[in-house]
């Protein structure tokens, strides 16, 4: 049961974006559509999951003084791997996410989990922690993407939702960068009201 809670706490209770308020930059920039938000979330989850496992495995041999460069090396290796695979198999998504894929390297959410959790806990727990936090991030970005895409562009996954009439005058504001702040604010308010 304790293991399960390691996994689930990252989903909502300690959600990186909405509760800990970290990893906000990619959350704002890549949640314009459901596809982008989901894709970015999965990419970050992949990196978080594997870097947590490797760092946890190596926690006893990493000298304390050089732990940060080693974390960054490991994280950036996984980021480069996902970057290559996206370029090869999901070129459209890759171009839409743009610079935010390489920037996963310096996403404080990932380095934060490495430093605060994986470097101090056993492998299985670290894997669960990475997966939970990553999926929490994915969930947030997907929900934000859905809200912004439906109201801001009148589409969901690129398909029209409300028909032609709405398409001409959607709430464009929501798909622009300030709209992301608004959506994060609303989601955080809802979370505070119903989860405490």
């Amino acid at each position, binding site marked *: 049961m304790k293991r399960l809670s390691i996994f689930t706490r990252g989903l909502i209770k300690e959600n990186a974006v909405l509760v800990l308020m970290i990893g906000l930059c990619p959350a704002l920039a890549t949640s314009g559509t459901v596809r982008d938000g989901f894709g970015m979330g999965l990419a970050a989850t992949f990196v978080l999951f594997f870097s947590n496992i490797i760092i946890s495995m190596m926690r006893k041999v990493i000298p304390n003084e050089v732990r940060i460069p080693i974390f960054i090396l490991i994280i950036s*290796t996984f980021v480069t791997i996902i970057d*290559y*695979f996206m370029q090869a198999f999901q070129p*459209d998504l890759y171009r839409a996410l743009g610079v935010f894929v390489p920037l996963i390297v310096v996403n404080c959410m990932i380095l934060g989990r490495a430093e605060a959790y994986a470097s101090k806990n056993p492998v299985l727990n670290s894997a669960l922690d990475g997966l939970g936090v990553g999926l929490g991030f994915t969930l947030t970005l997907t929900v934000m993407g859905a809200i912004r895409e439906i109201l801001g562009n009148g589409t969901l996954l690129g398909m029209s939702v409300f028909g032609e009439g709405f398409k001409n005058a959607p709430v464009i504001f929501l798909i622009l960068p300030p709209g992301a702040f608004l959506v994060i604010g609303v989601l955080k308010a809802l979370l505070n009201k119903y989860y405490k």
Partner: protein
Amino acid sequence: MTSTRAMVVTLLVVAIICSVVLSFVYSYTGPRIEETQKELILVGLKEVIKADIFTAVVSDTVWEAMDSTNNVLGIVFRVFPQGYGGPIPIMVGLDLEGSITGIRIASAAEGLKETPGLGVKITEPDFRDQFIGKTLENILIKKDGGDIDAITAATISSRAVCNGIKQGIEKYASYLCPPFDKCRVFPEAFDFTEIIPEVLWYAIKENDTLGIVIVGGVQGYAEKIEFIVGVADGMRITGVEILRSNETPGIGEAIRDKVFLNSFKDRIPDAITGATISSKALIEGVQEKIEEFKGYLK
């Protein structure tokens, strides 16, 4: 307190392992990435001009479009004019007369950075298809005195598209030339003035002579090989094309091979194995003609 040596060694080992892993991943995905990018470009090329074969004239920027029997139909070029939110990636097809056969603007998912709901409307058919059939003169938005209806509240993006296409045509139209024409061996030039009828021309760009174009002939293995060659000032060969030849099919006709002809641009190539007589004849013919007319070069 860890010893310095332990720190260095750990860091080094981790870095080496990471590099090895990445090189494996790259050796697997690298070719696939290239293929994906080529496929994407080909899809775009086919959207702007109805052709079967595309050969890059300027790598990643200008392509020549041909039908399945190698007849030249036109060119396609890419431009990236500065829009409102960033560069706008546009692909433009031109037929041999210089009018637009189609344009393709990358969608937001493909990297277009214009404002959602406003600027991105430049990708919609209503705007895009206005360009079909237009030539250099009338590609301007109506506000600027042209024929293109700008998108309401997205004048900057609309204007950027027009200007980008216009500048692209000005820059790349010189690549647009019928087969066997002088411009094929001297793509940098815009105009040619005859010095000796049917034999020698000056290649001209904006009132400057850049070099000469020579038509010549030489005895091949079977019949006379006629060729056209461009030479820029400083004795640099800009291109060689075969106008007429009737060498042995599959052997001597190898002199028509693009790779062989293109190799003239760097230095005088070696003869082709298996087609020694024909290729030597051509190489010597080209050298002789350049020698004969080099007095016209600066």
